[in-house]
């Protein structure tokens, strides 16, 4: 930070130590992803080479088999032959719906919780905390049998509604602490002017709430996108989203190169996430700390 007075700036040896530590951490944090991205353009014999890992860098077997040091075989196999595009489409449907519905429910609820000073509001927040701590798979084991009986197992809307519900505790907490930072005077003066509570919310609060809503939306999106327990158990084969689909690539009999389908699909599923983080990095950092820094 440039505004630190000179006498508070780190001394040189400490600084060097910190840089060294950070360099090691950055390699540990990022290298697995770089390595997998690079390897996804090779054939299995190179990426999982028995003789030397250097083969994954240079790709002799890839060159022998395809005539080029880079190949799109993994991507072709996953996206076209194994119809990964269908899973990608399902993921888009699920994540967009979950994010939108979560935000509508969460905004209303979070606003109410932030404006109520009663005990039951505090207890709803604690209940939400307990719900957030529930491992998702325990809830899934509660759903399966009733869903089979009601004949709503396997379809996208079921998974969407479930993910919305699982998302609510977190969304409520985040939006609650965000709405606390919007002064009560805004909506209360609107009500003094004759608005009902809902009109005050719509006319006075909605126009200023977007920063908080966008940050919360990013996290709802991440939760839906990253989910494995719910989508793996509640969706049937055709409706699978990307993450359970990749898991099913691994489960099937290991035909030559099918592990490379999983590698290519993993890269395909991770890349959009990382681009999203790059674009919204400031918001994510602000969002993760929003609830915490204020206590």
């Amino acid at each position, binding site marked *: 930070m440039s505004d630190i*007075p000179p*006498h*508070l700036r*780190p001394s040189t040896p400490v*600084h060097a130590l910190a*840089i060294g530590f*950070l360099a090691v*951490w*950055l390699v540990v*944090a*990022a290298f*697995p992803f770089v*390595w*997998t991205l690079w390897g996804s353009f090779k054939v299995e014999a190179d990426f*999982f*080479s028995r003789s030397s*890992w250097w083969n994954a860098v240079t790709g002799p077997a890839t060159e022998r088999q395809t005539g080029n040091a880079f190949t799109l075989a993994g991507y072709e196999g996953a996206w076209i032959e194994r119809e990964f595009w269908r899973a990608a489409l399902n993921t888009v449907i699920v994540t967009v719906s979950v994010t939108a519905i979560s935000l509508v429910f969460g905004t*209303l*609820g979070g*606003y*109410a*919780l932030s*404006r*109520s000073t009663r*005990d039951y509001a505090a207890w709803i927040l*604690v209940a939400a*905390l*307990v*719900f957030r*701590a*529930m491992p998702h798979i*325990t*809830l899934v*084991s*509660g759903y*399966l*049998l009733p869903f089979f*009986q009601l004949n709503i197992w396997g379809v996208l809307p079921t998974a969407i509604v479930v993910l*919305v*519900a699982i998302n*609510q*505790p977190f*969304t*409520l907490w985040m939006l609650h602490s965000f709405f606390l930072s919007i002064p009560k005077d805004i909506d209360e003066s609107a009500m003094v002017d004759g608005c009902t*509570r809902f009109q005050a*919310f719509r006319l006075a609060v909605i126009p200023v709430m977007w920063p908080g809503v966008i940050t919360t939306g990013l996290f709802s999106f991440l939760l839906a996108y990253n989910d*494995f*327990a719910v989508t793996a*158990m509640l969706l049937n084969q055709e409706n699978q989203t990307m993450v359970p689909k*990749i898991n099913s690539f691994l489960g099937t009999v290991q035909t030559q190169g099918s592990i490379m389908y999983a590698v290519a699909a*993993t890269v395909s599923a*991770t890349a959009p996430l*990382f681009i999203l983080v790059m674009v919204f*990095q400031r918001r*994510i950092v*602000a969002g*993760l*700390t929003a609830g*915490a*820094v204020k206590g």
Partner: protein
Amino acid sequence: MRHRDFFWFMAPSALAMILFIVVPIGSILVQSLFVEHERVLITVENCGPFGCIEETRVDTEATADLRAKEPLGRFNGVGTYLDRAHLAVDELGAILSDNDGPGDIARRLMNLPFYKALAFTLAYTFLVTPLCMALGFGVALAIDALPRASKGPVIFLTLLPYIATPLLGALVVFWMINTDGIIGATLQAMFDDPALSLQASPVLTWAMLIVWGIWHMAPFAFVVFYAGLQTVPSDTLESAMIDGANRWERVLYVTVPHLKPLAVFVGLILLMDNFRVFEPIIGFSAEANATSLSWSIYNDLNGQGGQLFGSAAATSVLTTIGVMILLTPVLIRTWRASGRRSV
């Protein structure tokens, strides 16, 4: 806010949570008291040229019929909780009454699926959480000292392990430490042991999963601590310096106390998230040596020979009790706070 307004604003969210979180918790309570129907057996007399033999066969039709009529299965009371796959009361009694010391107890407990899963889940939760916080805090201190321009990209790279889908993050690392992967092969070459595999021994598998957990969750601790560092009052730091505190003492006596409330928050979130550890076990195919409570439930629901709803539900109930115990301090604090307010 009026009760009525509060009710209507809260209704959609509360309804979603009641229907898909509270009701399922009730549902697992009920399901855990039932167990799958046994197959209906019929005895038929088979007469051939050498006389008649009585044969017992499975009546598939009657079995399917029974299962359709009573999908919950038959009532079993707390039987499922006490059986070998869960609390294993009989086995536990036998182990405690007749054993060759603590080592033997531990070894035999690890053969009981529930205790095996519980041991790993607890070890994972209580090792990953503090280590994550320490690493995250270290990274936050280091990044805070960087020049402004380089912070953006460095923070981006730091966040990657946390943002990545847990299952995919596990796979990416697994492919590297696989015996054919870059790290696995290098380790074999280093120790000159072609049979060396991180998956082979339970100790190495546990260590691998715990290191992965720290790698995955440390960025979360980092981000919160980093934001907290921006709010450390520089006056206090300066006066500490005038009082002769060195760098280390300033961190220890000014920064750390300032971040304490944040540390409680981070610790709580990490405990909750680590307690549900599940995806890395799938990603690393580690189930032979390490299982978790979440994984046990998944395994029961995904079973090859039909889904064991009763067994999964019983483990779910026990897991929920674990979550409640984990959250007791928070619950007590809220209880006290609400008591103060109403007085």
